[in-house]
C-alpha cells in the first residue's frame, strides 16, 4: 500500500476547555479525493483547521509527505504544500480579484497553476479581475477563493464547505471544475454538508459525528442508510 500523503492519527482538538475532536484518524493518498461529511458541529472544520495549522495540534498527530507537521504554524504548513480554502471563503476585501489570486501564489512554488490557467478555468474571474473582491457574487467569490488556493500549486487542497450559502446550480458549476484540479495530481479533502456532491466527487468518505469518525469507506460502497445513521448518530 503506497504511503499516504496525509496521515492524521488520533487528533485531538480543543477550543479553550471545550474538546471538539476526540482522536480522529484519517488518511489521504496522493492525488486522491476524500470527502469528510457530518452534521453541524461534528468537527469537520476543526479537522481542516488543525491540518492547516490554524489550530495547535500535537506534533506527531499529523504527518504530511512523511514529515510530522502537527504544531507548526499555518504559514509553515502552507510552505510545505497544503492549501486551505477557508470556511466563508476568506477573500481579502482590500485586494482586487487579481491581487487575491496573486497573493495565493506568494510562495512562488512552480507548477501547473498560473494566473492565466486560473482565468481559463474560471472565466467569470478573468472578466472581473480588477474589481475589488467584495464586488463578486457568492459563487464567484468561492471560485476566487479556490483559485487563490490553487495558485500556491499545492500537493493537498483542503476545501472547507465550498457549497455553503450557494445555489445548487452554482455548486454544480464549481464542482464541475474539480476534475481539472485532480488531473494535475493534487489530492483534495472536501468537507461538506452537501452529501450528494461530496460523494459524487470523492472516492472515499469519512463521516464525523461529535468529534469522532463514525463511518469510513469507499464512496460507492456506502449505502444511504449507513451514511444517514452515521451522520445523525442514530
Amino acid at each position, binding site marked *: 500500500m503506497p504511503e499516504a500523503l496525509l496521515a492524521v492519527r488520533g487528533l485531538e482538538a480543543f477550543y479553550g476547555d471545550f474538546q471538539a475532536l476526540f482522536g480522529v484518524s484519517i488518511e489521504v493518498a496522493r492525488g486522491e479525493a476524500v470527502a469528510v461529511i457530518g452534521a453541524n458541529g461534528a468537527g469537520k472544520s476543526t479537522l481542516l483547521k488543525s491540518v492547516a495549522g490554524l489550530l495547535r495540534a500535537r506534533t506527531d498527530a499529523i504527518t504530511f509527505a512523511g514529515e510530522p507537521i502537527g504544531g507548526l504554524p499555518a504559514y509553515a504548513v502552507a510552505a510545505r504544500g497544503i*492549501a486551505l480554502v477557508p470556511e466563508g471563503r*476568506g477573500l*481579502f476585501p482590500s*485586494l482586487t480579484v487579481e491581487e487575491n489570486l*496573486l*497573493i495565493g501564489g*506568494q510562495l512562488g512554488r512552480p507548477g501547473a497553476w498560473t494566473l492565466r490557467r486560473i482565468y481559463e478555468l474560471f472565466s467569470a474571474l478573468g472578466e472581473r479581475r480588477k474589481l475589488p473582491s467584495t464586488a463578486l457574487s457568492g459563487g464567484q467569490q468561492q471560485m476566487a477563493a479556490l483559485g487563490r488556493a490553487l495558485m500556491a500549486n499545492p500537493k493537498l487542497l483542503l476545501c472547507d464547505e465550498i457549497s455553503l450559502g450557494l445555489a445548487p446550480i452554482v455548486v454544480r458549476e464549481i464542482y464541475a471544475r474539480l476534475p481539472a484540479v485532480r488531473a494535475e495530481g493534487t489530492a483534495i479533502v472536501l468537507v461538506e454538508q452537501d452529501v450528494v456532491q461530496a460523494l459524487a466527487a470523492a472516492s472515499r468518505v469519512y463521516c464525523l459525528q461529535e468529534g469522532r469518525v463514525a463511518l469510513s469507506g469507499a464512496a460507492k460502497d456506502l449505502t444511504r442508510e449507513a451514511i444517514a445513521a452515521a451522520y445523525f448518530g442514530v
Partner: protein
Amino acid sequence: MEWINVILQGILVGGLYAMFAAGLSLIFGVMRLVNIAHGDLIVLAAYVALVVAQTLGIGPLTALIIVVPVMAMIGYALQWFVLNRTLGDDLLPPLLVTFGLSVIIQNGLLTVFTADSVKLQAGPIEVATIRLAEGLYVGVLPLLQFAVAVAVIAGLQLIFYRTAIGRAFRATADDPAVAQLMGLDNRHVFALAMALSLAVVAIAGVFLAVRVNFDPSLGPARLIFGFEAVIIGGLGSLWGTLAGGLILGVAQAVGAHLDPGWQILAGHIAFLIVLAARPQGLFPKVRT
C-alpha cells in the same frame, strides 16, 4: 501678497508634517497600532543623523544613506522583539509599551546628548531662495523638503498598491489568519511594516534636524502634529494624510502670522474643528 507668502510657507511645512504622519498612518493601517514613541523616534533619527554627519564629515543628504537603513533595522527589531507581543484586541499593551518606549528614548537622548539644542548644518542651501514672483520668495530647502515629502507619499502608495509586499501588508491587515494560509508569517510582515515606517521616520528626522534647533524633548509635539495631520486628512488614505499635513501647516502659519504665540494653538483648533464637523476626516478611504 503677504498672505500668499504665509500660505505658501504653511504648505511647505505641511509637507514635513505629512512625512511625520505617513509613518504613523502606515502602521495603524497595517496593524492597528498607534506608536506613541513615533515622535521620539523622529528625534532619535535626527540625533543619529547628527552623529553620522559629524563623525564622517558628510552632509545631511549623504547621511541619509546611513540613517535610513539604520532606523529601518531598529524598526524591524523593535517590532519583532517587543511590539509584536503587544498586538491583539486589547489596546492597552501597545499603548503603554510605546509610552514606556517614548520615556526611555527621551531620557536616553537626554543622558547622552543633554538638553542643549543642536542643529544639523546643510551649508549654503539653507539660505538659498528662489524668486517665484514679485515679492514672493521661497526657500530652496523648504521646497526640496516638500518635494521629498510628496515623493515619499507617492513611493508609499506605489509600495502598497503595486508590489507583492504591499499586497502582503494589505492582506495581513485585512485578515492575519488567512494571510498565514498564503504562507505569510505575520510577525515578519509586521516587522517589515515597522521597518518601512521607520525608514520614513529617518527621512523626516534628517529634515527636522536641518530645519530647526532640536533637543530630546521635541518628540511629543511631532507625534501630535503627525496625528493631527492623519485625522484631518482622513484615516486610511495616504494622499489624505498629505492633504491633512498641508492644512495643518497652513493653519499654523496663519495662526503664527496673527500672533506668534498662537501658532501651535491654531493647528490644534483646526484639528478640533475637523473633529467636530467631519470626524471621519476630509478624504477618508471607506473601508469595510
